[in-house]
């Protein structure tokens, strides 16, 4: 087991770690932005329902449209949610972001787009309006309205914006809501146009074009980038004001540019066809060429933001004295979804499916530990102790699992395997290049029995109302402590009615063995 976690050397002494654990509700009647949100939701909701009512004249196409966009939207929402590795945002806030994008922004944009296109037509040459109207008006109107959604959410609950990653999450959710409702509108229009009625074929065709070919480069991307810029501006206060403004502006320019390029008439040659309509493959090529550069940019930004989150996580858990709670390799393995999965997979190979499951629980408990610690601001707190106890309990269950044989020739990364599967004294640390030793050999404790007690496996519970404990089986001596009810203990030995028990943290004492409750 690695030593206690040390504070990261690069931690800025001026910047305090974020308060991840402080989660606030969306319902903030004292915040003017909350009322602005409600008013706009009312206006947008009316327009949204009116449009849906019109579309319901094609019930089959409408049902198919919503089913298809949900097939796309649910996984995207989950990915966005899970990419926020450490401090997941409150679900009500995420729902508000979706509502802003899908109800408020789409409804208002539908009104504004037509007006601004008309203004373009009145003030610019018609060919400019015809060719570039969607590329100028669309991004200008829609990105502004969507970004206002991210800013409004910030004004309602600023504490939920702890880092750049939060801007990504809220921006992506606003964009996802927008693209879902807009896609449904396009699907229905296609159904009315091509099918001449309530047909599903055109819905599927449009789904292939808009979602399969271009879904990765849609409003989710645009608003995620602008949202990250805004979050950078409001959260990275250790950077200078001008630098924050520059970062914000750069991200807004990038997000809007991505939208402009997507709507522009550029690269139409990819859709050129001698007869009939462009194929789905042509649409995919078109989407790749137009959207991939910005998608790569988004990935880079997300990776950078994730590293920043990991640094914050490290600074929060720094100084934890108990190596059973979290170790350096475990912090590293929590740094990405991939490394987390790798750790679970490795634990599964080492200790079976239950090992993988418990490793997942351990990872979640360790993140919760950081959340709690960021909230209470100290390492000494009952809630912290409870979380430590939970982590130790999961770890002890994990360590109590029997080892299973690893596949022949498999090579498991120690940096991942050891923290989640080892007792700390049982497995010798090897270099990352070495292969895993024989599981049986690894399971044998190498330390002397006097120094290393057997693995702690809870056998009993303290009964309701608690019970006293003595430092020796002598009733004439005063009890040294009163154990709380339901505390898990392991009975190491018995002497008459006395039982020598051990708690998870190694504490030992004598109790009335007759009153202990068998865990069964």
């Amino acid at each position, binding site marked *: 087991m690695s030593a206690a976690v040390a504070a990261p050397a690069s931690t800025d002494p001026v910047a305090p770690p974020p308060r991840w654990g402080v989660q606030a509700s969306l319902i903030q009647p004292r915040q003017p932005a909350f009322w602005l949100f409600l008013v706009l939701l009312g206006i947008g909701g009316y327009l949204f329902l009116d449009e849906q009512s019109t579309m319901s004249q094609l019930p089959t196409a409408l049902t198919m449209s919503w089913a298809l966009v949900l097939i796309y939207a649910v996984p995207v929402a989950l990915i966005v949610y899970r990419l926020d590795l450490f401090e997941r945002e409150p679900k009500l806030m995420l729902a508000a972001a979706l509502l802003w994008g899908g109800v408020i922004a789409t409804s208002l944009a539908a009104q504004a787009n037509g007006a601004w296109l008309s203004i373009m037509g009145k003030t610019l040459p018609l060919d400019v309006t015809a060719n570039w109207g969607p590329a100028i008006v669309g991004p200008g109107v829609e990105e502004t309205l969507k970004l206002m959604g991210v800013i409004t959410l910030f004004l309602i609950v600023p504490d939920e914006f702890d880092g750049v990653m939060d801007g990504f999450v809220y921006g992506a959710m606003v964009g996802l809501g927008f693209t879902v409702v807009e896609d449904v509108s396009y699907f229905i229009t296609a159904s009315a146009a091509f099918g001449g009625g309530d047909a599903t074929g055109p819905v599927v065709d449009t789904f292939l074009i808009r979602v399969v070919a271009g879904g990765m480069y849609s409003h989710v991307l645009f608003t995620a980038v602008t949202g990250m810029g805004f979050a950078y501006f409001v959260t990275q206060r250790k950077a200078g004001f001008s630098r924050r403004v520059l970062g914000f502006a750069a991200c807004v320019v990038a997000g809007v540019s991505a939208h402009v390029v997507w709507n522009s008439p550029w690269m139409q040659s990819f859709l050129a066809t001698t007869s009939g309509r462009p194929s789905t493959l042509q649409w995919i090529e078109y989407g790749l060429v137009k959207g991939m550069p910005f998608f790569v940019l988004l990935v880079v930004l997300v990776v950078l933001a994730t590293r920043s989150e990991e640094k914050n996580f490290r600074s929060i858990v720094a100084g934890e004295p108990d190596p059973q709670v979290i170790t350096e390799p475990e912090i590293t393995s929590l740094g990405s979804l991939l490394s987390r999965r790798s750790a679970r997979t490795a634990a599964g190979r080492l200790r079976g499916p239950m090992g993988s499951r418990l490793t997942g629980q351990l990872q979640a408990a360790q993140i919760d530990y950081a959340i709690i610690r960021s909230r209470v601001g100290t390492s000494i707190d009952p809630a912290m102790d409870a979380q430590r106890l939970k982590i130790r309990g999961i770890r002890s269950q994990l360590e109590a699992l029997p080892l299973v044989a690893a596949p022949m020739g498999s090579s498991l990364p120690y940096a991942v395997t050891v923290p989640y599967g080892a007792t700390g004294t049982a497995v010798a640390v090897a270099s990352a290049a070495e292969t895993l030793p024989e599981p049986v050999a690894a399971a044998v404790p190498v330390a002397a029995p006097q120094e290393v007690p057997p693995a702690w496996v809870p056998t009993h519970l303290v009964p309701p109302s608690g019970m*006293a404990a003595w430092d020796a089986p002598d009733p004439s001596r005063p009890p040294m402590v009163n154990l709380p009810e339901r505390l898990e203990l392991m009975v190491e030995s018995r002497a008459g009615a006395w039982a020598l028990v051990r708690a998870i943290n190694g504490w030992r004492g004598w109790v009335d063995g007759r009153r202990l409750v068998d865990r069964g």
Partner: protein
Amino acid sequence: MSSLPPDASDTSQSDAEDGSTDSTEFPRWAAPAVPPPWTGMGEAAKVPTFGVSDIRAEVEPAAAPAQPEPAATPAQPTAVEIPPGQAPYGQAPNGQAPWAAMAGPAEDRQPSLDRRRLMPTVAVACIVAAVVLGGLGLDKVLAAPSAGKVAVGNHVTIVAAPGWVRADEGGANGSAGVTLQQANAQLSVQALSYGGSASAALSDLESSVSSEADQVSFGDEQDGTISGRKVAMAGFEAVVSGSSSSGTVDGELICMIASGNAVVFEVVAAQGDLGTVVDDVKAMVSSVEVGQ
């Protein structure tokens, strides 16, 4: 801690109902005071230091062990050292009643708005209003350019609605007909000598459109009169594609019989935008004049 209850004297009572406690479920006792067994490992000074060997040395294996009599034990459990900042059992921090922590500071209960964020919120509202209402308002006040009165051919003229301008270089090619354009809609008008009915002219026009589009579907024909002249009309949706672009359009075909001429209107708009130009097209159809 001296108020802690002594252990139950009835040692025969069964506590087996708790035996099913899930090992990962942690009871609420963990939240209040925390005695040494589950206190943070860093607080080593608070953890009892005796070990197994120490205890075994004090126990005589051969002797009958003294039965623990928790209830009869005269001494109350000794006070447990409480870590700084923690409250004793049953007490909230600072000696407050348990529910005291539920109520926030007095200012939290005030219903007044947070004035610090009023101006930023107003700014957001203004931006949203500028984008939406500003666009709608500006569109209304801006005078739209217009082609004015346009000669279609065969002595037929129409008056272009505001916002509609020539899109065919002023008819320089000499063909009978004119094309007008608005932001995202296009209107083609032709005047041809025709001896048939408006309905027959519409059928001919539909055949022509069908041959030009990749896919097209027409709505039902509607007959009527505009400015005293017979009119036949039908809506359509079509897929059009070219060497550089492709797309779906909405459209309307209108055929009017006027003084031995068939005046044919074909309006095409981007998908979903046809509704915004319907009034303009009606006005232009009504403006048809046939000169001598």
